[in-house]
């Protein structure tokens, strides 16, 4: 699945021993993917490969993180991997939705790639439908986290110090039996599947998600990436942290073209 590409000088390798893999879930508002765009764009990450997969809708375009004429000509496809060795960070960006019935095979292949490439831990950025919150969740922070048991041992106490809120479980049969609780992430795409599979496979995985609705999700992306930064410290978090993140050139014209003057 993973095809390494020439890193311009360095040898192409698929070993990310000790690295943190950061990835999005295609979820409500595409918040995870937007947040990943901010990370790649701000940290100036280098592309190290892509996923050759039949599970995602194909798409191609020119470099979405282009800053000048020179770097705007590189092709970019639906699932690409970037890295920043100085921070031991490897990032997967997913740019299109899953083809029907293909999300399970994708998750299986992805998790086996995580194991074979020796990633130390995985952080999934995701989101969940805001309208499905219960009364308590409507108050306070819309950001939540989840940790697999293996990662809980390593960083669970750090999350407590950060005062983060763990994603609540909901009743499996609401109204009938309130004691049996399950994890439910409506609108989260493959988040729950990735998480439950990682729990059973002993993979260290964290999920960071935000409750949101479809619309202009740029502020949600900023909120999620700042939340991530509280933990991973990817950039120096100063007073106005949002100003530190660099918006990629591909975010232009998200809501359509210019208007025809003849309209007025």
């Amino acid at each position, binding site marked *: 699945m993973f095809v390494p590409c020439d890193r311009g000088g360095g040898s192409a390798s698929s070993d990310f021993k000790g690295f943190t893999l950061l990835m999005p*879930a*295609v*979820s*409500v*508002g*595409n918040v995870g993917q937007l947040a990943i765009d901010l990370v790649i764009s701000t940290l100036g990450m280098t592309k190290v490969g892509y996923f050759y997969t*039949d599970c995602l*809708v*194909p*798409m*191609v*375009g*020119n*470099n*979405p993180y*282009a800053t000048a004429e020179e770097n*705007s*000509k*590189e*092709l970019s*496809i639906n699932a690409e991997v970037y890295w920043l060795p100085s921070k031991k960070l490897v990032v997967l960006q997913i740019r299109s*939705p*899953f*083809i*029907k*019935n*293909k*999300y399970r095979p994708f998750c299986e292949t992805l998790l086996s790639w995580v194991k074979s490439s020796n990633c130390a831990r995985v952080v999934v950025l995701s989101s969940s*439908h805001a*309208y499905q919150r219960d009364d308590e969740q409507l108050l306070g922070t819309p950001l939540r986290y989840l940790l697999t048991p293996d990662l809980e041992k390593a960083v669970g106490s750090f999350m407590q110090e950060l005062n983060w809120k763990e994603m609540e479980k909901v009743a499996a049969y609401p109204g009938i039996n309130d004691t049996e609780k399950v994890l439910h992430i*409506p*609108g*989260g*795409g*493959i988040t*729950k*599947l990735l998480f439950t599979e990682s729990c059973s496979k002993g993979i260290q995985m964290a999920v960071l998600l935000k409750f949101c*609705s*479809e619309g202009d999700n740029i502020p949600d992306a900023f909120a999620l990436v700042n939340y991530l930064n509280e933990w991973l410290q990817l950039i120096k978090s100063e007073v106005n942290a949002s100003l530190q993140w660099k918006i990629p*050139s*591909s*975010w*232009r*014209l*998200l809501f*359509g*073209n*210019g*208007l*025809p*003057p*003849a309209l007025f």
Partner: protein
Amino acid sequence: MATFFGEVVVAPSRAGVDDEEEAREETPEDQEIRRELEKKREVEVLWYLKSGTSAESSADKPFVCSRFIVAIGHNAAAFLSSFILDSVCWEVVGVVKLWNEWCRTSQTTNVLPTDSFCLFYRLISDPTVLLCQCSCYVAEDQQFQWLEKVFGCMQKEGLQVTILSTCPVADYKTQESTLTLPSPFLKALKTKEFKEHICCPLLEQPNIVRDLPAA
């Protein structure tokens, strides 16, 4: 989510995975139906050998191809029919058979411009030059199959691929309005291995290409 009229509707989500799809376990009957549907949606590539008989595509003997031009969609296919193809210089060497909700192609090579078809032609004077006219719609779940089965038969060393396609001007993202944009216009995408001169500007961000041309 409540709408103006007060009824509660489930908002369509960009997540792409329905919760119902996730929660429902597949029964053996579901699995059987899914397998049958998958079989029906299989893409078949049939190559016609010199002798005129048809044969299944054989991956064990890939043929040499130096240039492969693929025209996807009615406009691109019509362009090839009008300006490039003729029965003197080109011969039909293959066909793709597929079915989806939008179209069905058949094995026949005698097609009308209004039919849905996917045919392969070879330049008689240089049999390493291949052309594909694909006026049928290849669905999302069939695109990868099409790709693997067609390219699987070709020797990829020294192969140059050119893809011709069209998109509506209304889909083009630009600072000005597309109403005043002089159209039609050409844009290109190329891999870094492509060193030849391109006759038009490159496709600017944030525009993208989808479907079979992207695949």
